[in-house]
């Protein structure tokens, strides 16, 4: 359903207000981020990734979501068997129990109370469908293709310009005001233009994560977030570690 439709409609919904568009916000999002011609991945893998990205953006408030068709910079690593998403969660998604102890200790030394302010970290998100069956080998291949921390400028930013769904925080209105961005279609993937980096609330966190990756993260085995989509568009997220990592005592 992706191939013939997009070209005529692509330009149409940009000018009028989106309410009049016959397409849903999600459909417009799909149309705005097409599979690049040189991508090694299948269209359905791409669609799956888009759907997960959409869920991350609008249900969980993630920002700076990028799609990686070939996320490994090192030459030796194989390319992943499917497109991978990276993004920045609104809060820190995972904290190793030892790091938690460390953070709490520092808080006590500084005589601070309350929730510690830890910067969010970029996470790898691997989209999957519930009806797939996985093997340990596929997990291993996926981890081998991923770097420890997703690079800030790797991959291509996704274009969320046309999707104005419910439950979006203030940042969306900002990007919506510039909804006439002509590069909306062209940006799709592989373009370096970051669409979502201009979000207000999380900019302070991004700078810290960009500058120095957390030593707790680099010292630990790799991790990824396995996003599993079901037919009813539910997406569940599970943190998968590439090795023995003791559980959080949450």
């Amino acid at each position, binding site marked *: 359903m992706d191939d013939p439709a997009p070209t005529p409609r692509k330009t149409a919904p940009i000018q009028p207000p989106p309410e009049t568009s016959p397409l849903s916000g999600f459909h417009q999002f799909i149309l705005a981020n097409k599979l690049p011609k040189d991508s090694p991945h299948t269209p359905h893998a791409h669609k799956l990734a888009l759907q997960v990205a959409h869920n991350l953006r609008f249900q*969980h408030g993630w920002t700076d979501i990028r799609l990686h068709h070939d996320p490994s910079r090192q030459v030796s690593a194989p390319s992943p068997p499917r497109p991978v998403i990276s993004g920045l*969660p609104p809060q820190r*998604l*995972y904290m190793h129990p030892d790091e938690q102890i460390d953070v709490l200790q520092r808080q006590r030394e500084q005589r601070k109370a309350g929730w510690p302010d830890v910067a969010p970290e970029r996470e790898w998100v691997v989209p*999957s*469908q*519930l*009806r*797939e*069956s*996985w*093997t*340990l*080998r596929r*997990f*291993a291949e996926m981890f081998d293709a991923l770097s420890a921390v997703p690079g800030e400028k790797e991959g291509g930013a996704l274009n969320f310009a046309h999707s104005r769904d419910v439950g979006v925080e203030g940042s969306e209105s900002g990007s919506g005001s510039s909804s006439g961005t002509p590069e909306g279609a062209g940006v799709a993937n592989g373009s370096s233009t970051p669409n979502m980096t201009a979000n207000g609330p999380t900019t302070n966190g991004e700078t810290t994560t960009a500058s120095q990756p957390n030593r707790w993260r680099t010292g630990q085995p790799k991790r990824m*977030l*396995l996003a*599993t989509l079901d037919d009813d568009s539910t997406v*569940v*997220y*599970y*943190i*998968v*570690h*590439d*090795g*023995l*990592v*003791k*559980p*959080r*005592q*949450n």
Partner: protein
Amino acid sequence: MATPELPAVTEPFPIFTLAHRYLLYDIGTISHIRAHHNIPGVLIGLLPQAPQQNVFSGIPLELMPEEARLLCEKGVGYIVDDVRAHKQGFLDRQMGEEERRVLREGLRRQGVVAARQVEEKAEGKKLAAMQRRVESGGSVENWNDLPEDMLRPASRAGRSKKGKKGQNRDSGTATPEAGVNGEAMKPDGEDTMNGHAVKPHASADGDGDEEESLFGSPMNSFPARPLTHRSQDTSTASRRDPEPYGITPATSYPPLTATPPPSRSSAVNPTTPTEEPATDVHQLPDVPPSYPLYRHLHSEGYFLMPGLRFGCQYTAYPGDPLRFHSHFLCNGMGWDDEFDLLDLVTGGRMGTGVKKGYLLGGIERKDEERGGRRGRVRKGGEEVVDVGKGSREKEVVRTFCIEWGGM
């Protein structure tokens, strides 16, 4: 962990297989493998009086096949087929008369020791109670009056022991004969009540912190000269052995002898029929395909317990399960075994719900082996017996931990 009274365990020790289970009967071995080999096992012995009570089970200890296999591979244990050992040891080869006599005598001696211990303990208790009664009452005229401090805490008992001892002896001299006669005649119930086996130190033990028995000996049979008289008697203890307790040995391996494997390579030449079971050593216990994961986690220092209660194969504890909560719910599988994402979600949910991680793992097979994928899986399942002997070096178990994302 091992208490000093336990005899040292000599490795290799026998692991008895019975009805496809691997059992340990010796408490010394059980605590040894727990302390030194990180293997807790599962105690499966129930009390006959309370078979429903399975919280505090006792020996025997059942080992998972993985545990038995691991101990065998480490060379610290060997498998003995219990049924065959008994058939050959007791039926094929009749025990000689002398052998039986020695065994019976050994059991009788154990029974005597046990009976004497019980007797001494009862004696100590009773003496303490009486001591308190005497002290509190002073010179009691009417022994039928219940001393009012019988329910008082015991700490007050030893307060003025020295001063009251003379009174104790005076009032007791009324019936010295009861004790002496009883002890000279026969060790029956009345006799033990009167406390014949009191050793000189028993009274010293008893008056301190022993719990007190409300029903001590009858007052009119108070032993008159416990200290002086007893010391002579105990020197010739054999004369007045108490009735030996019936001892049912927990293991049949004083009469039988389990012999460790002579060596890995050479076949056994059974000189005596009881050594025959040693041939079983060479056959390692069969293990499920998750054994590589078990061995990997065990080598990482984890204690592994059966995981049924959490819906997995193993629960991994970072230390002794008595001291730590478990960290992982583990499932082992082949490198190319397909699993449903729903299983992973279920396991991840379950693990996170109980503050654990869900762990998957298997032997990593590199890309060059990828060709016959299906066949390899099948073969891996069958070859599991010799997993770990030949290709121990190159096989790498890779694990993945899954936790709920919290989103």
